[in-house]
């Protein structure tokens, strides 16, 4: 059996996020900076990975932009004052550590086993 070209990303969130599932539309809008709160009123903050298979998989499946296009999107917000640059991290462990301690943080990782201390969100 051929190995998958892209690792499937696992969406994780801080325990303050009140939902256990999120629609693909809402997830996309969170990671484009167009949505800052969920249906239950939880304020959310997107957290990115810097690179890697899970990062590429997440962007392709849920955001519809390449890494460069997404960074340009956020730069256009930052340099016009209409948004902030999300934090980004190099590894699953760093993403989990930040999401675990940051209220409202939503991120993604490559390995479900690394999701200790954060809640997993199902994308519907």
């Amino acid at each position, binding site marked *: 059996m051929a190995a998958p070209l892209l690792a499937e990303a696992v969406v994780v969130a801080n325990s303050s996020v009140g939902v256990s599932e999120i629609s693909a*539309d*809402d997830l996309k*809008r969170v990671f484009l900076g*167009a*949505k*800052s*709160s969920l249906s239950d009123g939880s*304020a959310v903050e997107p957290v990115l990975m810097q690179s890697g298979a899970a990062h590429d998989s997440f962007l392709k499946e849920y955001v*519809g*932009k*390449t890494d*460069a*296009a997404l*960074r*340009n999107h956020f*730069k*256009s917000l*930052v*340099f*016009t*004052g*209409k948004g*902030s*640059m999300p934090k980004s991290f190099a590894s699953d462990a760093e993403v989990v550590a930040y999401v675990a301690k940051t209220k*409202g943080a939503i991120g993604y990782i490559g390995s479900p086993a690394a999701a200790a201390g954060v809640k997993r969100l199902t994308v519907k």
Partner: protein
Amino acid sequence: MRECMKWTVVAAVLVFAAAPARAQFELGGKQIQVHGFFSQGFAYTNTNNFLTMKTSDGSFAFTDGGLNVSTKLTNKLRVGAQAYSRNIGHLSNGRVELDWAYADYRFTDWLGVRAGKVKSTVGLYNDTQDMEFLHAFALLPQSVYPIDLRASNISHKGGDIYGDIGVKKLGTFSYVFYGGLRSDDPRGGYNYGLRDGGIPIGPIDGYRIGGDLRWAMPIEGLTIGTTLVRVSTGVTGQLAAAGGLPLHINAPGMNYQHYVEYQRGGIKLAGEYQRNPSTYTFTPAILPASSNDSRGWYVSGSYKFHPRFEAGAYHSQYFYNWDVDHSAAGNRIVDTAMTARFNLFRNNWNVKVEGHFMDGYGNRSGARSFYIGTNPQGLTPRTNLLILRTGFNF
């Protein structure tokens, strides 16, 4: 040239030093973000001098940069400011200005407000036209984004009401309504051009009231939209031909702009159409009242062959007065451009090589692209332009 090279090296060092720090730090429990950019260009033309630069000899007078700082005071409230400076030929001359500074409160996803000096949303790229690192091209289509007339459209001192409305299966609708006083650049294209036309002018004042509505469609990567802006412009000058007689010019007008953009993977396609009907009245009425209908449009495409290499092209047309002969060189600027962009060092540094083939020079007594002051020998119908431009950002 040595001065330009010195600032280019300084900017490169700052970017390479700041990029690893991710341009943010904590102060008083708040995350402060700092970002900046700098670009240096070289322009050469085979005939007419372009954008007040002495491009027929080759010119390095093509520099700009900006620095911003921002923070979230609460989950819903952000504040920030950006300083900007540029030197393009005889324009702006390195003047440091407050590019934007405002407070932004987001009540909900579908309702937010901004107040202060705000970048104006007009079309696809008005508010990002200074950020060359966001675009494949060294020079955006001048038919719609004239770099010499930037001040007339770039921002307003007032406020916005804005929001994003997601509709299941239909994509996202984004709106912004805004109003405020228009910006002015005492060393901008209008000042330079009118002075050369015998009417040195004072500060340009007026207001802008408008709105933009765009639809990120269910087709991935496709966005369409429209902007409507009501502009009032007032300026007092001195009519040199009448011994310096004070002359007030009142020029209300409209800006209609319609656009489409498609971006998927490495491909990016865009097209915009802009129409600017205006009327001019003079006090005293020594010149007759008049009206003008300027129009411009372009289509562009680019493709990222590799993370480090992107190529693109556009065709752009501008007509000073739509109701007059379109074939006259003095009424049009038609530009076909091709570009190659190379991304270096973690996408914080880029180099562009771009060629333009222009037909026409627009209204010689107006202010746009080709100016009498830098072309005292007269204007020839065709101009070929080479631009080399490098930019840094963090």
